[in-house]
């Protein structure tokens, strides 16, 4: 298995020790710089020093375990700014929690916050996936009204073999993110449905990022609903 190595050693004046040191330094540099931010952000007071307006909010996603909410909102900043969990709790009569994320944080943290929450909380009855119409893809803002106008909607993946509806529909880069959800939902319970929404309502909302002030309660244009179990009020009837 060494046809190459014999030639390379002949070609090179570098000693095995030098080559070993090179590999070590290459990996050591990479690992050190790669790991430094993780150490840095764990320092006490980082949130205060960082100057980020979003740091504390994003941290909340990971610190809100054991909330045992009935409804969990998980999405990008459209959900963060567009949904008031207090209003929703009041109108639905169900305990609601909004796990904050942003378009910039999601590609890094993925569904980690939701997984973390579900691993340490009672199973919710409803999980709402609420993403802006560009679906995490800035180049996808061709015509917001047409973004979800896909017929039939592209079905991305199977959910549970036993599920009555069986598939969740999503489109765009959300596909890279959402496939993790089913296994997680399956872990939460053995009998939930997945319902697909085409998101037409969200298309309008998405034009104005911070639509919270004049937004309907929330449910217009959610990306997909994981209905975890138990009876819930009809979402459409809850639009104001």
């Amino acid at each position: 298995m060494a046809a190459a190595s014999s030639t390379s050693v002949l070609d090179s004046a570098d000693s095995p020790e030098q080559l070993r040191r090179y590999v070590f330094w290459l990996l050591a540099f990479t690992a050190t710089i790669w790991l430094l931010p993780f150490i840095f952000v764990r320092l006490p007071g980082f949130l205060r020093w960082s100057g980020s307006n979003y740091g504390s909010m994003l941290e909340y996603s990971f610190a809100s375990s054991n909330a045992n909410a009935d409804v969990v909102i998980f999405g990008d900043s459209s959900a963060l700014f567009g949904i008031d969990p207090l209003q929703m709790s009041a109108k639905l009569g169900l305990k609601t929690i909004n796990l904050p994320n942003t378009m910039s944080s999601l590609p890094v943290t993925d569904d980690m916050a939701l997984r973390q929450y579900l691993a340490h909380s009672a199973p919710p009855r409803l999980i709402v996936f609420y993403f802006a119409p560009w679906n995490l893809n800035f180049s996808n803002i061709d015509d917001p009204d047409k973004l979800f106008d896909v017929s039939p909607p592209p079905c991305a993946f199977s959910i549970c073999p036993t599920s009555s509806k069986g598939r969740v529909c999503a489109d765009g880069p959300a596909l890279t993110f959402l496939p993790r959800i089913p296994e997680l939902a399956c872990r939460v319970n053995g009998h939930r449905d997945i319902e697909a929404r085409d998101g037409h309502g969200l298309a309008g909302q998405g034009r104005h990022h911070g639509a919270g002030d004049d937004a309907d309660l929330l449910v217009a244009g959610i990306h997909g609903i994981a209905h975890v179990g138990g009876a819930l009020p009809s979402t459409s009837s809850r639009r104001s």
Partner: protein
Amino acid sequence: MLFNSYDFIFLFLPIALIGYQIAAAFNRKAVIAWLGLASLGFYAWWRPPFVLLLLLSIVINYCAAVLIARNVDKAARARFWMVGAIVVNLAVLGYFKYFFPVLNFWSAALGFQAHWSDVILPLGISFFTFTQIAYLVDLQQGTAQLEGPFSYLLFVSFFPHLIAGPILHHREMMPQFRDDDRRGLVWSDVAVGLSWFIMGLGKKVILADHFAPTVNALYSVSGPLPAVMAWRAVLGYALQLYFDFSGYSDMALGLARMFSIDFPLNFSSPYKATNVIDFWQRWHITLTRYITSYVFSPVQLWIGRRRLAKSKKISRKAMSTPEGFASMVAFPMLFTMGIAGIWHGAGLQYVAFGVLHGVYLTVNHAWRLLRPKPAPKSSAQGPAAGRLRRNATTVGCVLLTFLCVLIAQVFFRSDSCHQAVSVLAGLVGFHGLGLRTGLPGESSGEAAHQFARMAVAFAIVWFLPNTQQILARFKPALERTPWDTEHGNRFLLWSPNIRWALVLSAVFLGALVGLKDPSTFLYFQF
């Protein structure tokens, strides 16, 4: 599994290397078995059931190889088994790759409403099918010998080449598998292989994936593209494809090298080619070699025999006549490149891509055969003027070749011939210049920024040495190319020192950050 994924870099590769080192403590068979097992695991990671298809293909072909080897003295029987195995291979490939697209094409052409969903194309099916067909053909012709089942399994499935090449030849690989002199990790190979892998990863993640969103958005625009947008799309795709395939090839060869196995070179600065023949000796080199050996040469040989039977000549002089050129060069070339086009996919645009390159190559060969001999150098022309003239000619040839390649790539990238023609019309301004037109939601300076980034990328393509030239001291690939020696700047030659460790560490980090949303390689679909 993708090379450009955390799973591969942080999980699969370290396990494969550690397992290789442990297996090396036993014997060569353990090493081969481990690498074969790891390769099957690599393939199964994508869709576990499809590893059965790969295994079935390997088992059937190996059985055919045994039957051919046993009957090598009985030509008719050996030929029967070879043809039978090739038919099975092509039938499986045809089903997965062409059956439903062709069915849908005819359904649409004949006005039927029926549309069948495509089946999932098993990754790398073309590559492992053609690798095995070549082995069977050579075995039947007596130029290969029967190998052990585990060596054969590793030859077909070795993970660095399994998904998208290079297309390996048994004559290059089997001796390396047999070599029992040294086993286990060799630091020089690990250092060179790891460095090459990181260079490829950087090309893919930092460069190719950077151009992908804009190119995809431009090619998705419904309606005709004005000139500026069409050029952005076409040049952007040229760079995306270049860095994508070049990056993949670097990664594949670098990975193999980590295990002290040399792969043949597959990519060597094709945009520096001065003519289309030169281009195909630099782009997907192993595919060129394959179709030359197993399609072009047999067709040309068959034509030559027919001509001899009709008492016609097959000399170079005969080839220079219009009739001789048409039958001995143009026909085999167009046929071969048509097949190469179809190999890339089921769609008329791929056929057009192949035939277009066939025409380029035919014209190029005609030029070589029929052009008038250059005039003797004028004594009045000084050396500086001569050098200037040569350089200008080279630049002109490179640009002309690149333009030809660009035109063919429009067909390669488009969803249909209709779209390709529309984009080409856009390039020459049929749909207006569109100086102020951009993608929806794009800021006003974005197009200018995009062109600036493309200029930097083209500078990398045209003015910097390629990775095998950078690594030339360590002979990174199986063979040296004529271009390896062109590299003259010693500062850019790789050495195992702190400077290169820092540079590649920065590239590695940049790539790791960009890996958060890994994308597939363009050649995976073939």
